[in-house]
């Protein structure tokens, strides 16, 4: 149950109203996220699917904000919407540019795929719903940027460095792989 810090304790109504607002926002963004994702999955047009993914990921970012993860939300929008999806769009254009008539994708294995996905969904929902989570009452907080920065430079320094190296390797590897065909006869 979300609440306010102790020094300016809100009245019940105030708190209730805030809660309702956050609940409304949660459901709105949930609908956006899940709806866009479903559209993406079932869309015949791959470009449409890509744009649906943008919306879905943006919705996830909004959910992050609702979870008081402002820095992660910003990163999500920067990296996914600004980076990865542009990359995917480029990929679509580079690979399917010549075959405009094939722009409509066709699905395979539809029956086992839907059965399995449904089973997984039921399974996960059941597990998440049935499990007794030891939750705490979440505290309101201002920004996470400072704390994340401190952690990144202290206990997460080594993973941070490794992540940097990983990115470098990935960039070089991607460059190498995508340019090799020029050397081929």
């Amino acid at each position, binding site marked *: 149950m979300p609440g306010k810090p102790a020094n300016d304790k809100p009245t019940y109504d105030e708190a209730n109203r805030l809660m309702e607002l956050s609940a409304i926002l949660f*459901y709105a963004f*949930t609908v956006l996220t899940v709806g866009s994702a479903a559209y*993406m999955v079932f869309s015949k047009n791959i470009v449409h699917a890509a744009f649906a993914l943008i919306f879905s990921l943006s919705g996830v970012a909004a*959910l992050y904000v609702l979870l008081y993860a402002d820095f992660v939300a910003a990163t999500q929008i920067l990296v996914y919407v600004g*980076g990865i999806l542009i990359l995917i769009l480029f*990929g679509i254009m580079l690979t399917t540019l010549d075959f405009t008539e094939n722009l409509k994708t066709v699905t395979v294995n539809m029956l086992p795929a839907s059965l399995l996905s449904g089973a997984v969904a039921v399974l996960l929902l059941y597990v998440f719903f049935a499990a007794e989570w030891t939750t705490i009452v979440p505290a309101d907080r201002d920004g996470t940027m400072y704390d994340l920065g401190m952690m990144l430079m202290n206990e*997460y320094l080594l993973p941070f460095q490794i*992540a940097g190296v990983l990115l470098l390797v*990935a960039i070089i590897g991607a460059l190498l792989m995508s340019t090799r065909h020029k050397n081929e006869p």
Partner: protein
Amino acid sequence: MESTFLQWLAEPGLTHYLMVSAILFSLGLLAVISRKNVIMVLMGVELILNSANLNFIAFSRFTELALDGQMIALFVIIIAAAEAAVALAIVLNIYNRFKTINLNEISLMKG
């Protein structure tokens, strides 16, 4: 019972977020399994990664994990970026070699 369920609905907590994440995961899985196009498969993978991230952040909000969950989510995003770059380079190579990116047509390893 009725009012309890409504009240549960009105107070979005850990379970709500987890359920959203579960639905996203299933949709991503469906995309990965059923779509022919490699790029669609990749987008499904992104969806799955996001559902996992949503889990992390939800746990970081509602349990004692605190900021560690966000930190892990950050690293997941980093790795996702790297994965996307490499995967798209591979897709381009596949396209150059097979002149298609439909997975059902690429079956050299058929036994």
